[in-house]
């Protein structure tokens, strides 16, 4: 028995983390959707969900319940087995990718030495779910949506991968945990060393997760709902979950590689240590707002609920504040790290939402052209430029020129931008309107 416990001991914490992620993630996804609807409403001069709970705070729960008790319709001519399995593949792949993600310095299920490779490989598996779902539905819209999705993912996966390589070159490791530690050591996020790479990854990740302006696979006005057209109820919500988890995954990758993972902004500048007070203060402000709005709620239940939310924020503020005390210094990095990581992922997703409600949708051929004619070449040039910069930065005895890191990267990024500008100009000239008319 003891041996058994001993055997499981090293796995207990990862198991706990895995449970937390699987159990809490659907809830988080629900609230991301709520935030998205609120952001959308704010940009569109309206209020958004306001009915279920105070300020619509219970809307995700209501939506989830609705989706779960909905009738599960399987089309008569669908391939039942595949139709049934496809969403599971998608959602499993998406969740699995989170296994190697360092959410905090201690909050990581498994620190794989090939972490990034694992994440990219597994999250690409999700496309099987989409293609199989589109095929199994036996509907034109689904099939077109699925094929679009597959083509899009393949095209942008390459650009995204190339963009990530620029980060890898700087870090020299595939371990997600190490990448963040190296950024901490360097005292600078890789976003500032390889801005072009970050930008390409940002755009490519939007395309990879099928978000506007690249949301062609589910373009409502063209393909109804793309590969999800024939799905309903629980199976549909699995696809939905997979999509949002994928967003979290790409957000986490970007945060880890380019945005310093769990690090506070400017972690090595002691003059900016007051930033440590930001997390508890933010929570205090949120709590204060909840308490301020509580008396204004129309119904007693809503008053109570909003007050509870306020108390929760207050408790979080307490936790984030207590670890600042010197006595609890050992807990400071894990707790605050998780906070910063989640905040960065959220900001990254906010950019997604912002773009979604601002831009029209690309057409499929335009999307492909952008991917293959612009993003991929620039990403490749970027990798080469970073490599050159690293050689320039190398000490003389190792065959380099011993330039400063800043100077060499400035030169390399400038070179990349020139290539990008050239490609854009060529693309503009080559772009001719599609031949129209009969």
């Amino acid at each position: 028995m003891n041996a058994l416990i001993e055997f499981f001991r090293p796995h207990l914490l990862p198991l706990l983390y895995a449970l937390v992620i699987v159990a809490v993630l659907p809830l988080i996804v629900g609230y991301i959707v709520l935030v998205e609807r609120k952001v959308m409403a704010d940009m569109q001069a309206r209020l958004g969900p306001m009915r279920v709970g105070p300020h619509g705070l219970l809307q995700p729960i209501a939506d989830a319940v609705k989706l779960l008790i909905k009738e599960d319709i399987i089309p008569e001519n669908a391939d039942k087995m595949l139709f049934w399995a496809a969403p599971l593949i998608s959602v499993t792949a998406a969740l699995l990718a989170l296994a190697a993600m360092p959410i905090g310095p201690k909050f990581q299920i498994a620190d794989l030495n090939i972490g990034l490779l694992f994440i990219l490989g597994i999250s690409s598996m999700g496309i099987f779910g989409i293609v199989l779902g589109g095929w199994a539905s036996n509907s034109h819209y689904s099939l077109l949506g699925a094929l679009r999705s597959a083509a899009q993912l393949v095209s942008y996966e390459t650009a995204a991968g190339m963009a990530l390589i620029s980060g890898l070159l700087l870090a020299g490791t595939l371990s997600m945990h190490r990448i963040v530690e190296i950024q901490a050591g360097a005292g600078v996020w890789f976003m500032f060393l390889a801005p072009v790479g970050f930008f390409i990854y940002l755009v490519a990740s939007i395309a990879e997760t099928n978000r506007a302006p690249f949301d062609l696979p589910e373009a409502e006005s063209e393909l109804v709902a793309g590969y999800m057209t024939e799905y309903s109820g629980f199976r549909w919500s699995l696809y939905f979950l997979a999509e949002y988890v994928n967003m979290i995954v790409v957000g986490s990758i970007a945060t880890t590689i380019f945005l310093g993972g769990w690090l506070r902004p400017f972690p090595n500048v002691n003059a900016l240590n007051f930033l440590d007070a930001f997390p508890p203060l933010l929570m205090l402000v949120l709590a204060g707002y909840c308490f301020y709005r509580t008396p204004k709620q129309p119904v007693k239940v809503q008053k109570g609920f909003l007050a509870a939310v306020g108390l929760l924020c207050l408790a979080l503020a307490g936790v984030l504040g207590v670890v600042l005390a010197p006595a609890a210094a050992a807990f400071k990095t894990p707790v605050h790290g998780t906070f910063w990581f989640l905040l960065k992922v959220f900001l990254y997703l906010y950019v997604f939402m912002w773009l979604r409600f601002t831009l029209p949708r690309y057409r499929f051929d335009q999307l492909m052209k952008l991917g293959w004619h612009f993003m991929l070449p620039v990403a490749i040039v970027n990798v080469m430029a970073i490599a050159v910069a690293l050689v320039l930065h190398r000490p003389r005895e190792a065959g380099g020129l011993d330039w400063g890191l800043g100077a060499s990267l400035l030169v390399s990024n400038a070179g990349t931008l020139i290539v990008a500008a050239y490609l854009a100009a060529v693309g503009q000239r080559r772009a001719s309107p599609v031949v129209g008319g009969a």
Partner: protein
Amino acid sequence: MADTRTTSFPNVETTVLGADEIVINMGPQHPSTHGVLRVKLKLDGEKVVNSECVIGYLHRGVEKIAEHRSYQQFAPYVDRMDYVAAVSNGLGYCEAVEKLLGAEAPPRARVIRTILTELQRIASHLLWLGTHALDIGALTPLFYCFREREEILKIFEKYCGARLTTHAFRIGGLQYEAYDELEKDVERFCKDFEHKIAEYEDLLTQNRIWLGRTKGIGVLTAQQAIDLGVTGPVLRASGVKWDIRKAMPYAAYDQYKFEIPTGRNGDTYDRYLVRVEEMRQSRLICLQAIQNIPAGPIMARIGKVLKPPVGEVYHSIEAPKGELGYYIVSDATIQPYRVRIRPPSFVNLQAFDTMVRGHLVADVVAIIGTIDIVLGEVDR
């Protein structure tokens, strides 16, 4: 002739891939066919080889109804055709019957009619802009447009109690006198609206994705447009400077200064620019009109029972969608012998096939949107 609805495609072109074409059916319940339009598309990959519109799902037999109602009774029915521009429909019908009677609405009524019709044009174009942008994937302009459209509908509601199918005008003039703050309301709306148009344009006009999705899409040359009888903004975007408000002025349009915007390429982008500019011009017309609304009666003396002398008349107005014509034949009874409605949407929709060939599926929705059809009017 028997089975065309399901199988035959007139003028099928053979493509390189031959048998690998698929037929996809858009509508009648599709989010971006703007109602119950059904489009059968023959696709080669994602490229449209051929298309066929199947219409009539909303056919209510308006022209037959007209023969069984008196002239006044039929007036509310025309509001149900282009239900997003009910005021314009009513204006066309009332003026046609007035012409048939040989009567004319008093000047005050004509100016108020002009103001409301121009507001209706703005409202109709706003609805078009919002939904068109939504079809192309821009979610936000829809809400901005509906915000302003709401203001116009509020003015209608204050004027006649109805917002959508207003039945605002009567044969011979107006039923209701303008309410006290009409001028003020219209002026306030027009003042604000200038900045609001700038807001829409900020979001779209120079947006590279918007340019990519609309430039060179659904090109209709002036020659094709005239041959297909296309009217309204679609014709003007093809470069034909023709607007019934200028060519054959009705209501009080001869008193106001305004420009007719035209396009050069006849593509979706030009149609967008033309309609946006038309909203500006409509705003200017409203501003001019409220400066000087003549006093006087609002109803001509035409009697309660209308029995127009035997004969026929064709009268058309520039509705937001194009030329809206009424051809009315009278046999000197209280009911029209025949009312023929020349719906702009129906005729413009015929150009869809010409515009869509060779484009991608994604452009189909852009082209349906850019024609600006209302199925209530197509099917009548």
